[in-house]
């Protein structure tokens, strides 16, 4: 993750969690925080390969 951010991925776009299948509430919390922080960053315009355009 450090190298990803080192080469220009915004902090907060890449996140790691460990959630047991028994931790449903943690799962919901993590999904909420991740979506909120990614929404705040906006669309990923950098590390995003454009599909090949076929005429």
């Amino acid at each position: 993750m450090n190298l990803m951010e080192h080469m220009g991925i915004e902090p907060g776009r890449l996140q790691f969690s460990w959630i047991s299948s028994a931790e449903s509430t943690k799962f919901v919390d993590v999904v909420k925080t991740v979506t909120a922080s990614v929404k705040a960053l906006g669309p990923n315009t950098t590390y995003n390969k454009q599909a090949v355009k076929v005429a």
Partner: protein
Amino acid sequence: MSGYQDKIKEVALRLLKDGSVDMVIGFRKGTLPMMNEPCFIRRPEDVHQLVWDSNCGINLANYLTDRKEKIAVVAKGCDSRNIVTHIIENKIKRENLHIIGVPCQGMVDKRRIISEFGDTLLDVADDGENLKIKIHGSEKSLKKTDVLQSNCAACIHRNPVLFDELAGELVPEQAGVDRYAEVNRVEAMSPQEKWQYFEDLLSPCIRCYACRNACPLCYCPTCFVDESRPQWVGKSQDPIDIRTFHFLRAYHCAGRCTDCGACERACPVGIKVRQFTSKLNKDAFEMFGWEAGMTLDERPPLDTYKPNDPNDFIK
């Protein structure tokens, strides 16, 4: 320098004559100035080919992978650390190796010399302190310490860590060098600047994979970039594919890279490939106190679990 060379020849001759090794891996003169090439000496009468000077930057550990015969290998500080890594990773057996350690005073950055003098160089000779550069009709002398490869200028492990005999007296290690100056400079940038920095850095990449081929760590039978089922990364010149190749390759070297600079030296377009691995080296040092290849007695941090491993990134 010539002292090292004579000693290397003497040791190689003795080992080949008494049959204690089947092969000596060292350097011989290349066809162009500053382009010494690795050579594999199997007969005592070929020992005279061996050379040693400031253009032996190639990492010879790269040629040991999965070898079964008895080998004597010439090893600088970084080579010896890669040999340790090879032994730890079961790519070569310690008992099959006779390591001729060479205390190193840094290798010369051939690109800097070529950019200064053009590619019409006739000869570059090296007396240990100074380089004598011969161009058409004139001769110039340069101080070697001014034209070292960037990784050598910031090296703190010049002496071999593992050897059976030495080709010369141990040299004093450098103190007070900032190994991570470039990494720190990039770390201080904003995400957009970082992205742009690596975009510019990688823009000349032609994906020849010379960096991978020169790297002693890259010994997978099939590299992830060559696989097509599944295809992990696009094979095109798309900037995203190029970046993915470079940073994934770097990750494969995490906690293993000795900063030997072979990747940068091999790059035909002069990309500072070490910008990726230096960051990982810095992280390995800061998070695990780890420098690759310093000892045979400790497992690398990425293949062992310790209760105090940093895990703040897992939310």
